[in-house]
């Protein structure tokens, strides 16, 4: 039992440290959110990719950067309604 507890604790600390680490009860919403946020963070982080997208959109790079981070707030739309409501 102690072993199981420790594994659980380890997993929890891992999840706290590395956002996006999944677990057995990850919901599709959480999973999608993580994927989308990771993608936007990657677009913002890679300078050539950001410039490429900005040129495609006909916008300024800095403006697109702001928009992409803004999109990370609500990555995949509202969460599904909770069942206990």
């Amino acid at each position, binding site marked *: 039992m102690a072993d199981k507890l420790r594994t659980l604790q380890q997993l929890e600390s891992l999840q*706290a440290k590395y956002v996006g680490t999944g677990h057995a009860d990850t919901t599709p919403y959480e999973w999608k959110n993580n994927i989308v946020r990771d993608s936007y*963070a990657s677009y913002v*982080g890679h300078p050539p990719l950001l410039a490429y997208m900005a040129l*495609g959109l006909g*916008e300024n790079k800095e403006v697109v950067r702001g928009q992409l*981070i803004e999109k990370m*707030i609500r990555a995949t739309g509202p969460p599904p309604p909770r069942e206990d409501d």
Partner: protein
Amino acid sequence: MATTSSMFMYSLTIQPPSAITSAVLGQFAGTKEQQIITASGSKLTIHRPDPSQGKISPLFTQDCFGIIRSLAAFRLAGSSKDYLIVGSDSGRITILEYVKENNRFNRVHLETFGKSGIRRVIPGQYLAVDPKGRACIIASVEKNKLVYVLNRNAQAELTISSPLEAHKPQTLVFDCIALDVGYENPIFAALEVDYTEVDQDPTGQALEEVEKLLVYYELDLGLNHVVRKWAEPVARDATKLFQIPGGSDGPSGVLVCAEDNITYRHSNQEIFRVPIPRRRGALENPERKRHIIAGVMHKMKAQFFLLLQTEDGDLFKVTLDMAEDDNGQPTGEVKALKIKYFDTVPVANSLHILKSGFLFVASESGNHHFYQFEKLGDDDEETEFSSDNFPAEPTEPYTPAYFHIRPLSNLNLVQSIDAANPLLDCKVANLLDEDAPQIYSICGAGARSSFKTLKHGLSVAEIVESELPDKPEAVWTTKLTREDEYDAYIILSFKTGTLVLSIGETVEEVTDTGFLSTAPTLAVQQLGEDALIQVHPKGIRHIRADKRVNEWPAPQHRSIVAATTNARQVAVALSSGEIVYFEMDTDGSLAEYDERREMTGTVTCLSLGDVPEGRVRSSFLAVGCDDSTVRILSLDPDSTLENKSVQALTSAPSALSIMAMADSTSGGTTLYLHIGLYSGVYLRTVLDEITGELSDTRTRFLGLRPAKLFRVSVKGQNAVMALSSRPWLGYTDTQTNGFMLTPLDYVGLQYVWNFTSEQCPEGMVGIQGQNLRIFTIEDLSRNLLQENIPLSYTPRKFVKHPEHPLFYVIEADNNVLAPATRAKLLNDTTAVNGDAVVLPPEEFGYPRGTGHWASCIQVVDPVTTKSVVFTLTLEDNESATSVTAASFASQDDETFLIVGTAKDLVVSPRSFSAGFLHVYRLHEDGKELEFIHKTKVEQPPTALLAFQGRLLAGIGPDLRIYDLGMKQMLRKCQVTTPNLIVGLQTQGSRIIVNDIQESVTYCVYKYQENKLIPFADDVIARWTTCSTMVDYETVAGGDKFGNLWLLRCPQKASEEADEDSSGVHLLHEKHYLNGTPNRLCLMIHYFPGDIPTSIQKTSLVAGGRDVVFWTGFQGTLGILVPFVGREDVDFFQSLEMQLASTTGNPPLLGRDHLMYRSYYAPSKGVIDGDLCETFFLLPNDKKLTIAGELDRSVREIERKISDMRTRVAY
């Protein structure tokens, strides 16, 4: 890298990326002078601005083999040298210093804090340093912030603490800067949004209520921890922060830049807000709100200001007014925030103000600009907007502010630094009929776009070109005495005579020089103290300073055929094959050596080296004979004219030159023997200074004419000028000390000599036909020459006319008003004065309008007129998406230009109202276009290609074949592919389809059945940007994440696809896992660090093998060179391993080299030539260690590395 791969490529960069992603300013050399360090892709470059010339020039570039994300400079208190902190994808923080003596970067600290790669929660996106250099913060887009304390130890060395965490989960960071707080505890400010609530709330209420906070993180230096000190909501759409000076310089605090307004915030100050003024004009939408996208704060004595830039490129000067008490003393309270228009410069990634009064603009697209400040806009007539007239609350409405744009008044452009960024398409073709092809590319964005022609060569500045009465055969210049600084005479040798010109204010003929004018000349030399030597076929004239002439006559029935001289020695070859050798006596007279050396064949050329410093003679004489040999004879007194060594050649030597040049192997200078052959080949061998042995021969083909060699001096270094069908310059690269051989962008010359005069201290004089030309070579750092032709809008794609040297460029700009709309607006306007003035769009940009497109087709002639010869503007909000020149079998093989367009295109999420295929007939040899008809199609055509006398079109996911009809295009057949076709290639009946997301698909066209059948596709989703067929089975391509790959169709599948003429078998073959029946194999994979935008198989130099040439979005030009033998692969693999290991030259930023090159997928079958070339930059001891490990000599390794490049590229 898998050693099992059967194919290996050597990857090389020809031109590094020119986009500057970030830049910092600082005194990195530890002197008063400021330098700029820029990051372009994976390269760090330090530049030196020269205030006296108003120029900025690179000092040193280092490839870091990692993605550079952020840069910051800092200085420890009391020190005079700035350090550089780099945030990269290595998961480590790196502190570098620039070592001026070695001209290298030196890593001071490397601290690991997280995983490598660019991830959401790994810091590196934001980097800020406390202005007093006491701490730095490195933050990620979400959650993580690490603060490092910087200090110095007892030895005055820089120390870095372990990181202090300031994490806040589920929080997004929009910007992060350091506050200027003087010597109080360092504070960092961040713009944050917490999304915890949004993720929990299904109603969407939380999303509307979410707040953007300005948060202060204070580093308590006493307690050594970070606290979240202050958090206040700011405008919801704020994205940028700027520092306001604090301590004794100002009130401290930040400027929060949001959409349409700027707010001053600080924990102990009132809030002040000003709007961002909008442009006023007939073409401007008065409702359009601007954002601040870049800016710079500048502190001067007792005052400061900020220059902030909007996405239009307008710079605004922002100042703060301080409150004063009754006695007129400043109270430290802010009274008002003020903003006014300053000037308009290109939209910048980074702005820097130098202390010497310059502004450096690292442009987002196109050339980088270097401006000089004329004034600071203090007392001009621009309206100043003050926060007094605008509410401070972020939600409160206000009346917008407006201003008029005008040409530069405060700034003055002093230098425009060429940059091919973004580079959108490229083609290599030889349109000038030269021996090597040129690179044609389309670059830039908006009105600053251009069509660039790149050519390998050095630029030459011509000073004089004058016609002579007759065709001279040779030219020399000479000083009169050893101490003279400048040349006094130009001596021209004709078939039957010699002409002497004196150099003064004018160049005129002189006759009393003592030179024999009735015979041609073979050599001229200033000998000893103040004598001159003229060698002519019948003898040697020794002209003393008092014009006394001693003549040594050639023996009877023999004449002099070749001669060589230096300041103390003369050697001549007689027609009988004898060599006569003279040395200068102590009394200045020439003494003949008593023996003559008889050679076996006729002597074709001779060379003496320069007399080394402190010696009385050069100890070698090189003799070239027509039996295709070069002999080295000794000139030492005890072994005069004895054989030292022999080298056999492939053809008779036409010219020789013994010369000392800087050498990368030894670090000092080395004696070289340069050999030119009658076959046009140039050889360079190392001549051992003691033994006279020849070793390490490197060969290069120059041209079809016999090579002639001349010693010249360029930029203070000895260089060799090799003349064949075009002139080449052999010189030492200033950074690597490696030997470079580059053609000059100049006419073919027959003879060249150094030319030094007061006006032109480092020139050359040359003969071309009947003309005398004097010229200089000014820049040795750039060996690619550029020619620009400005284009109207962002170029998207281009095609070449099948026969004529013309290009058709399609251009489109999103969110820009079309010319017709602009004209209409200007007509309709009841404008007051000044509103209807249209300023040049190259500087001010086009008027913008959401959803509008401005698009055109331009015909560019890069050869004769070097301009745009025809422009056809698209109307009805159509934008060009694809172009091809196709000949139609149904129209007697006449070539038409087909352009695919989209109407009302919205890029993301993708939507449009229609797509069209436009057909244009070519007139005037292709210089004019006539519209024939247009065909409406379901989706915008995104790829077009001529195919077997018809047109192949990618219409959305459909691949179709069209024929040209009278009224419209006629669809013949089609097949559907996965998503969206972005490119097409063909060979025979095979068609390669690039999908935007699903890599490439091989299709075959069955003519009899009129069917298109996909038969092979890929296993990995690649977001293809470009591809090319390197052979019938193989495709090389790139994707938008910056990978290069080579895919090959299995032999069996490839054969089967072509076997069956009806295609029945293929059609009924079982599909495999929802795809085609066959899968492609990955041959090579590589991450070059830039997004490939074009790729093609071509050769780049005369006689060079084919290489895969690719261009990157940020302006990179690169090649992949196939290896022929396994042996070389093994060698380079072990060299790569040695260099990347910790004992060699591991990447500067701590990124593992192999991991970097395997960024998205494991690197396969590619040797990183850029890493191998860092070998040149290593100090000698490291070179020796690596050479020892590889069991080879340093020279051998350097030769192998430089051969890999010079054989196929520049």
